[in-house]
């Protein structure tokens, strides 16, 4: 096992990731500092800062309305699945399953049944012919 490098953190913080700890503290400091400046010290009017230029205004609106989140949720989890479901329904379920498999198989089986039943003429001579042809067929498949 390789010896671990000595941590720059004090002993009671051993085991923590220094980068994560540092970035968290910086984020906290930024948030707390801005909050103090805008809302406790009231050194700067936040409305004025927001309206001072288009970048701050847009950024404020983006964070305030959160429309992007709704739109993302809508497109990812509503519109796209609906689009996929409609496609599956139109091209697979209605076309392939309903028309192709259900109707198609039903018609194919019905047609096959009519063909098979058509051979069942009730006339002994035709049965005899099939019997003879069957005997030849059996001998031929034995030869394969």
């Amino acid at each position, binding site marked *: 096992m390789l010896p671990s490098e000595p941590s720059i953190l004090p002993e009671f913080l051993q085991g923590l990731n220094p980068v994560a700890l540092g970035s968290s503290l910086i984020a906290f400091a930024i948030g707390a500092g801005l909050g103090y400046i805008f809302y406790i010290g009231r050194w700067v009017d936040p409305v004025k800062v927001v309206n001072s230029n288009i970048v701050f205004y847009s950024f404020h609106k983006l964070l305030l309305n959160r429309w992007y989140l709704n739109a993302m949720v809508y497109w990812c989890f509503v519109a796209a699945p609906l689009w996929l479901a409609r496609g599956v329904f139109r091209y697979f379920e209605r076309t392939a399953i309903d028309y192709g498999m259900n109707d198609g198989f039903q018609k194919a089986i019905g047609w096959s049944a009519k063909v098979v039943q058509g051979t069942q003429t009730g006339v002994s001579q035709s049965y005899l012919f099939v*019997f003879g042809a*069957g005997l030849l067929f059996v001998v031929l498949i034995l030869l394969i």
Partner: protein
Amino acid sequence: MLEITSTPLVIMAILGTVGILLPIISIVRKEKGSNSFYAVIAFAALIVSMGYVGYQFLNENVAPAALFSEDVIVDDAFGGLFAIAMLVVALFTTVGSFNYMRKHNSPAVYYSLILLATIGMVLVAYSTDLVMLFVAWELMSIPTYVLVGFMKRNPSSNEAALKYFLFGALSSAIIVYGISISYGLTGSTNIGEVIQGYSTLDPSLFPLALLSVGMFIAGFGFKMGLVPFHQWLPDTYEGAPPPITALLAAATKKAGFAATIRIVVLGMVVLHLDWTLALGVIAVMTMTIGNIAAIMQKNLARMLAYSSIAHAGYILIGLAVAPHTSLVYKVLCIIF
């Protein structure tokens, strides 16, 4: 030499005696009714026969495999299992006929014919000689021809019987032709010797051996209802008395399979034929055509006839896959 207490001989004695006595009793009693009297006697004869087969199995008096013997019949487990199956079907047919025969005449003859047909079926399963097998085959077939046309005032029943008889006669002729070819090739009608003779056959005679196997498949396939030898079956099942339809569907079909396993499968093994493919093709055709024809049927008897054709395919596919793996065979047997 077969012992007098061997299973096929005792079954033949019990069912044969009762089968012959029933019409004689009815003549002596000079009564047309009393269906229950004859039904109970036939039922008892079948129960005693089944009991004897079971007794022979329990006492291990039966050879534990499918054997070939110098005798014309052999008392082996193969025949015993088929005998039980056929006796059970005959028993159910007798029970099922009880109500049916209340409305019809000549119950003694009816039950007698069921018993005689049962002897034929049982002997087919026990036969180890082609001539014996053919005699048993006819003993099974002839009473069933009569039974199918038992409602003699019903044109549908008459047509059914006539078609069944015509195609039965044709299939019998084909079987006899197959037997004659195999006898010509091997000099014997004993199934074991025929198969042995096939294994040492001169290659120039191989097509004839092939023809004989094909004829056996066609001849036995008629009774089994295999496609394309099945066309008589819906017409016959529709016109026959319903209990006899059940007998044909369940028992004579099994007799065809017993004969096929004993002769065709073993014969094709020694001829090194790819019988898996041949039987597989026939089985697939039988299953497909049977089910497809059944699905659009409006007549129940005909639908069941086609269904029984499909079931013959299910049984045959078990034979077709048998050499590949025992597991697949078992699974298929369980499924079907």
